[in-house]
């Protein structure tokens, strides 16, 4: 960042005004130092919907990706403290992913630009006044006339429309560019069905799911909606579950959740897809009539041919074909980065054919949702050409950072340099901003008005929930003001004084169209619900197009030689926009459990051949460039492939992102496929450097050594309703009982005796006992709960250096264990969310010398921070290792202004030298109890929802009072799959896990 860019210290007074009651805000464990004078700053005018001490919730829409999930923004004293899902919203139904929640750290990011920046006399960037900035832009646009290009990543909505109209008015072109667009999918849709839109997938309805490199649980389309559907289909419901097969070179998070990982040679997936289609046509009669015309093309793809193309054994292919043909409706998806090689369009086409012949179109694959992928990478190449040709005089970037998301090997940067005037509306000093002449930092979506139309039937509203943290201007207002400055046609086109007014105008139209009598009530209703939600549109009738007939499965071309290089989208950083959010940086990668770093994944055997160990720094050379990163040996990757997450290696973008890790795109050649960026198109030479850099992973040992931590039960047994013990015996692996009957009895007797001894004081009262059930058959390991927990409980991040020492604070942590992977048997991953088990006979409690850890009357392991002297004995004695310690003043270090405004005032911020751990969100429990007390009623089931349970898109977590036999948690715990981790220690945890259900031999 240029040094003349100073972070203007925030105007304290203004914040206090926002906070309302100083001190009620950012709580810090300051002991009892009340002698220092504190100020009470009252509101000037008391806003009706703000009651100090009680959260106010605003409905809005998430803008972190194109999925457009509905938000409930929890605010306290008029500052947003947490983002949660909007239960009414059809896309995410009250849940939210890690990236969505971390949007809050975009709002409060200390590296946000505090004002517009323009070139000064000497050509250096420095802060300018807003009106100057507007003038500059207007002048430049006016001068450029029709030679204006607007590059926007804004998903469909009024803003996007405004950009179109505005550009049209000033005369210019719009390029819609998203890094992870779905070019291949859209091309394939056109080719096979003759429709120019993206399909919408209904995972929930599918009985059998095959994904060809589409990581639908990470970034592909709307991950949350996919995950909800996937959980519905694949989560065991007592009768059965869908089978999920993942075809790809690398076992991604999505792959980890597959019942079978098929590592087909990259580029050969098309053959497999067509093979499956062939099998379906051959074995099933219910295929649509016009599918017959494909017989000729498909006939070639016999099991043998497919096996030969893909390098899979014929048996595997045969079973796949048989199973897929049997299941209906099924669902095949493709088009993710995981298989985005130069043949990706063909692959998607093949998958369309497969879905069509299997009769899935209209059942699990829907068209007519009006989803488009934008003009994509092709258009950017076209823009590059135009800029080189001098056809562009002014470029405006909005909601996009192409200088990071485009491969460096391409000529975009050079071409952009030729353009006379470049502007961006980025809130941050990112790579693109650094290459611009004018930066007009927009407002964060929590500070401005907007709406979004992710798909037909969903029209979400974005509303400001608080005063802007920095006095900036929404891009919409910028466009309107510029138009007015330019005047003429442009000026005439836009009469609205502000973007808010413009938006309301649009919505007035909507209201009229819906025959709403009075706009205000309509508007207020829409705001309260976070938008308008209609039933999904009737799916369009789809017939095969001419193109469907000629789909070739050819090995796509790869540049360079050596191992195939597979960059993949990180589920945390997405296309890189998440790289400046500490929550995401410290939330371990669901697959490798690595934080704060870039890494290179390599197959164990390949590593052995090259004599490489974890942490060794490897240099990868491709025709396009070379990068260095530490190695992570990962059994879930094909032998001839090196994989690397995208999203890090920023050269700008603030203190957290800048210079952290490396950018995998630097190895890619920018050569076009057919209008999309072929991520999977490069081979690299791996070169040992002999240097080492520890991998910042939070994992000790990836194997659970048969300790039964993550139990799994075969589907057949689960359907019979067997317990884990019974299932083991049925499988002939019956390990001996933990306790013989007589022992069990003795323990029971002792237990009762003990319970009697405990009836004293508050413990004699009739209190609730809080408990939790976690269904491992539904948990995908997506880690949304981890961020939710950090957000709710003011958990600071510790940074890379302390992660090296294993000092992460993560009350909710996802443990990932590998099964198999050796001598031929397939590698499988199991995940288990590990949090404080709130043991009834907790080992941590009796060892605390000062009662800082003790058992509350409502069955929790109370942790009294201010009583803790920090002997750490409790942490040593915790078998689950879920107690975390403040080795330094982490909170002080992490929550720098204005990030401290995100702190939850209901939760003490832990000081240095204090032990902390999951509290079952006790502040929510107490809150619910207080409310119930005021209303003279008892706390009802569902009144208390922990942050993790709330965020979980799979609905894997149930929380409630185990003393209430009617509660959901008790019902869930009755499940025969239920077990306690380390039960033999007799700690009597309050958390019950439901064993994961796996396809065994019967699959």
């Amino acid at each position: 960042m240029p040094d003349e860019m100073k972070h203007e210290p925030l105007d304290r007074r203004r914040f206090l005004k926002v906070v309302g009651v100083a001190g009620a805000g950012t709580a810090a464990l300051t002991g009892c130092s009340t002698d220092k004078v504190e100020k009470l700053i009252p509101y000037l005018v008391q806003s009706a919907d703000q009651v100090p001490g009680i959260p106010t919730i605003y409905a809005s829409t998430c803008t972190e990706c194109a999925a457009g999930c509905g938000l409930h923004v929890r605010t306290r004293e008029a500052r947003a403290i947490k983002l949660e899902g909007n239960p009414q919203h059809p896309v995410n139904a009250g849940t939210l992913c890690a990236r969505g929640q971390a949007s809050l750290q975009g709002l409060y990011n200390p590296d946000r630009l505090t004002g517009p920046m323009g070139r000064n006399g000497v050509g250096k960037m420095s802060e300018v006044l807003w009106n100057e900035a507007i003038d500059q832009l207007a002048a430049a646009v006016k001068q450029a006339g029709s030679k204006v290009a607007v590059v926007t990543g804004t998903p469909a909505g009024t803003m996007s429309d405004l950009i179109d109209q505005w550009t049209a008015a000033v005369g210019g072109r719009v390029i819609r560019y998203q890094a992870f667009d779905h070019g291949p999918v859209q091309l394939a849709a056109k080719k096979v069905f003759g429709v120019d839109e993206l399909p919408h997938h209904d995972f929930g309805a599918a009985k059998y799911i095959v994904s060809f490199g589409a990581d639908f649980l990470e970034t592909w389309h709307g991950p949350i909606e996919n995950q909800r559907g996937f959980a519905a289909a694949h989560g065991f419901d007592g009768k059965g579950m869908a089978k999920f097969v993942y075809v790809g070179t690398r076992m991604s998070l999505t792959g980890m959740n597959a019942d079978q990982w098929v590592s087909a040679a990259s580029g050969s997936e098309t053959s497999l897809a067509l093979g499956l289609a062939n099998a379906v046509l051959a074995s099933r009669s219910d295929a649509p009539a016009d599918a017959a015309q494909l017989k000729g093309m498909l006939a070639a793809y016999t099991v043998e041919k497919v096996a030969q193309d893909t390098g899979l054994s014929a048996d595997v292919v045969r079973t796949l074909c048989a199973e897929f043909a049997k299941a209906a409706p099924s669902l095949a998806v493709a088009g993710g980065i995981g298989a985005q090689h130069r043949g990706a369009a063909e692959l998607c086409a093949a998958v369309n054919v497969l879905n069509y012949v299997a009769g899935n179109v209209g059942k699990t694959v829907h068209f007519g949702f009006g989803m488009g992928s934008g003009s994509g990478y092709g258009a950017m190449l076209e823009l590059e050409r135009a800029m080189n040709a001098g056809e562009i005089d002014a470029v405006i970037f909005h909601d996009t950072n192409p200088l990071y998301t485009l491969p460096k090997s391409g000529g975009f940067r050079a071409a952009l340099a030729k353009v006379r005037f470049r502007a961006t509306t980025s809130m941050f000093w990112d790579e693109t901003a650094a290459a611009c002449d004018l930066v007009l930092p927009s407002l964060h979506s929590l500070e401005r008005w907007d709406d979004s139309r992710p798909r037909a039937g969903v029209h979400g509203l974005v509303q400001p929930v608080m005063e802007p943290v920095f006095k900036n201007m929404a891009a919409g207002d910028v466009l309107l003001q510029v138009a007015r400055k330019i005047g003429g046609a442009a000026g005439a086109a836009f009469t609205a004084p502000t973007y808010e007014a413009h938006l309301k105008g649009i919505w007035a139209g909507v209201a009229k169209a819906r025959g709403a009598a009075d706009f205000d009530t309509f508007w207020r209703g829409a705001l309260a619900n976070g938008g308008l939600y209609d039933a999904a549109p009737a799916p369009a009738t789809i017939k095969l197009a001419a193109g469907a007939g000629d789909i070739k499965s050819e090995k796509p071309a790869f540049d360079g030689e050596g191992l195939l290089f597979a960059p993949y989208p990180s589920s945390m950083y997405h296309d890189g926009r998440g790289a400046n959010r500490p929550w995401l940086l410290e939330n371990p990668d669901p697959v490798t459990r690595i934080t704060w770093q870039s890494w290179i994944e390599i197959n164990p055997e390949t590593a052995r051949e090259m004599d490489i160990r974890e942490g060794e720094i490897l240099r990868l050379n491709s025709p396009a460039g070379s990068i260095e990163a530490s190695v992570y040996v990962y059994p879930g990757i094909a032998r001839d492939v090196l994989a690397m997450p995208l999203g890090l290696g920023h050269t700008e973008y603030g203190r957290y992102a800048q210079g952290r890790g490396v950018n995998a795109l630097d190895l890619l050649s920018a050569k076009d496929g057919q209008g999309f960026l072929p991520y999977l198109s490069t081979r690299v030479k791996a070169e040992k450097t002999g240097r080492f850099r520890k991998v910042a992973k939070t994992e000790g040992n990836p194997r659970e050594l048969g300790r039964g931590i993550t139990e799994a039960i075969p589907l057949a047994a689960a359907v019979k309703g067997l317990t884990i013990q019974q299932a083991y015996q049925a499988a002939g692996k019956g390990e001996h009982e933990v306790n013989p009957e007589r022992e069990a009895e003795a323990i029971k007797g002792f237990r009762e005796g003990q319970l009697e001894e405990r009836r004293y004081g508050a413990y004699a009262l009739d209190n609730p006992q809080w408990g939790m059930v976690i269904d491992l058959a539904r948990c995908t390991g997506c880690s949304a709960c981890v961020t939710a927990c950090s957000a709710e409980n003011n958990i600071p991040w510790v940074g890379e250096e302390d992660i090296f020492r294993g000092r992460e604070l993560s009350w909710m942590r996802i443990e990932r264990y590998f099964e198999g992977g050796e001598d031929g048997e397939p590698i499988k991953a199991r995940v288990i969310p590990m949090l404080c088990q709130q043991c009834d006979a907790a080992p941590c409690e009796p060892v605390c010398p000062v009662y800082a850890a003790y058992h509350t009357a409502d069955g929790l392991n109370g942790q009294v921070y201010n009583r803790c002297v920090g002997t750490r004995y409790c942490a040593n004695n915790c078998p689950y290792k879920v107690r975390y310690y403040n080795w330094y003043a982490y909170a002080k270090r992490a929550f720098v202004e204005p990030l401290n405004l995100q702190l939850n005032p209901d939760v003490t911020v832990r000081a240095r030298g204090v032990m902390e751990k999951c509290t079952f969100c006790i502040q929510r429990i107490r809150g619910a109890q207080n409310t119930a007390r005021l209303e003279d009623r008892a706390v009802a089931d569902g009144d208390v929802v922990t942050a993790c349970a709330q965020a979980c898109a799979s609905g894997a977590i149930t929380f409630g009072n185990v003393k209430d036999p009617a509660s959901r948690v008790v019902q869930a715990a009755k499940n025969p799959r239920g077990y306690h981790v380390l039960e033999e220690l007799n700690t009597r945890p309050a958390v019950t896990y439901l064993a994961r259900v796996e396809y065994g031999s019967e699959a």
Partner: protein
Amino acid sequence: MSKTVSGVLASFKYEDCAVDAIKGLKSKGFKDLTVYSAAPNHLIEEALDQPVSWVRAFTLIGALTGCAAGFGMSIWMSLDWPLLVGGKPIAAIPPYVVLGFELTILYGALSTVAGVIILSAMKSLKGRPFKPEFSDDTIGVFVPCPPEQRPTIRQFLEGVGSEEVTEHGA
């Protein structure tokens, strides 16, 4: 400096002489002797044959008090604010045995020392003469007696082989 007690002080380099002296004096009816020695000497103890020290009483009482204090404190304090830990009874006896034990020892030891000091102080040595060599290699025997008896006793002590005999007091 209080007035010195009238009497005779004899120094012995040989323990058997000292023992003879003590025995002789006791037989003569001099009970209130003061014998100085650099180290405990059982021959002298036999010669003096005094009753067993009462220190043990202090030790016992101290120890019992400590034991009671240990258990009392831990149990009462647990009940004063009942907090449950690890599913154990509020006032669990087994862990409190440690407290009981430690305080038994502590109080026992301290009261023993107190006992030694108090008991030793009960016999006042005010005004009785002392010579530095008594803490080195010499045994000293002091016989309190009225001035008129001094010569006879002096004679006797020199007789049993005292190296040096001095008379004290007005």
